[in-house]
């Protein structure tokens, strides 16, 4: 189990959507950054998507991450219509279809993408 809700979606990612202009976004706030409407809806994301950027980090910023280096960080375009940064399996490649889990990495709860074998 992960104590740290990511972020409050528990084992799922959250995204928000504006009921007025239908804009979707990832970084949580209490208004729509496009039209200013003040009661956005918060949804659980499917967490399914495609890798649009990928890097294998060798030079970690701190001891916690040095212990697991090299680690892969990716950006994923989710089917939910948002882009998310997360950790991923080291052998994940650009354009791979992936699925988000929430895992404990370097002592904290983080989004972690694994290859989605159900799609291809």
């Amino acid at each position, binding site marked *: 189990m992960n104590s740290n809700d990511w972020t409050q979606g528990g084992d799922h990612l959250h995204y928000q959507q504006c009921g007025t202009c239908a804009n979707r976004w990832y970084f949580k706030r209490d208004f729509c950054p496009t039209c200013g409407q003040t009661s956005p809806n918060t949804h659980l994301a499917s967490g399914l998507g495609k890798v649009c*950027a990928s*890097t*294998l980090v*060798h030079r970690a910023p*701190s001891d916690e991450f040095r212990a697991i280096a*090299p680690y892969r960080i990716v950006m994923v375009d989710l089917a939910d219509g948002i882009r*998310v940064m997360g950790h991923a399996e080291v052998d994940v490649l650009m354009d791979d279809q992936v699925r988000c889990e929430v895992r404990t990495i370097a002592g904290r709860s983080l989004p972690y993408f694994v290859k989605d074998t159900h799609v291809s």
Partner: protein
Amino acid sequence: MSYLVGSGLTSYGKHEGSSTLDLMSQASNLALKDAGLSRSDIDGVICGYSTTLPHLMLATLFCEHFGISPQYAHTVQMGGATGLGLVMLAKQLVASGAARRILVIGGENRMTGQSRDSAIQVLAQVGHPVYEVPLGATIPAYYGLLASSYMKAFGSTEQDFAALAVLMRQHASRHPGAQFQKPITEDDVLASRPIASPLKILDCCSVADGGCAVVVSAEPVGGNPLKITGAAQHHNAQHISAMKNLNDFGAGQCTQRALQSAGRKLSEVEYIAIYDSFTITLTMLLEEIGLAPRGQAGNWAREGRFSKDSATPLNLHGGLLSYGHCGVAGAMAHLAEAHLQMTGRAGERQARRSGISLLHADGGVLSSHVSLVLESV
């Protein structure tokens, strides 16, 4: 009209025992001397932040230390774009009449004033504190992500990136103040220590100590004035997770607006000074601005199209990649070199023609952009 009338640049690298204020003072003394001015001639001071001296009022702190009491002073924070942003501000302050002779300063002991981990962690804070930084992401990781996307979209290769690192080192080999002067090859870059794929250590700018200052004036005083004829900014999302488009960061439209405000075209530019925090940064900026076709910046560097004797020489001091990067002053070194080139004082680095220069810098992860156009008087 506003004029850049003096510049001062320290060597970049290790300045053991020098503080932010020491480096700012050294650069300011050099700039005043270059402009033929004294402390009492200065009525405005604007400076950039320092990560080793976080302060609410760095400009005022500096003024007390340096011994001046200007009519106008404050600090500006735009990440790597700060240096050129300060010059744009100085141009506007002079035009508005708020001040007539403005000292513009950047300086920081980024290398010796903190541990390497601390520097990496502080800089990573341009990322999102909840959704990005906790992942163990670093600035090289953000740019590694961008590089992977760019390589896929435009076919650039790691070897193409390496060609730009080789070029910057070649240019730095002619500058005694550069942090790294020993020539390197593309193979050296490719074989260097991996940092955040596809970026290796030689694709990354250094962490250095150093300072740079310029004087912006309402009149072309002293022996080496330049006209500041154009300036523009463009701002995207702060974070790459929130970027609308990973293949267009607005550098092209920003430089176009700067050139337009100067009444110039890109084809008229004779010297270019482009921000090069990583080889991918330089690639993306050159290609977005239109100084090389998409996917061709590395090839063009190999073919000599950015070398000293070409039509558009680039960063002839060696850039952030080899002259060095000490924060706000990092991109100001590009400016100091443009000043020397445009006033015919660059010695063995001197380009043939550099009457019209285009400068561009970005802050964050291509989040903020500033372009400047400088012209000979």
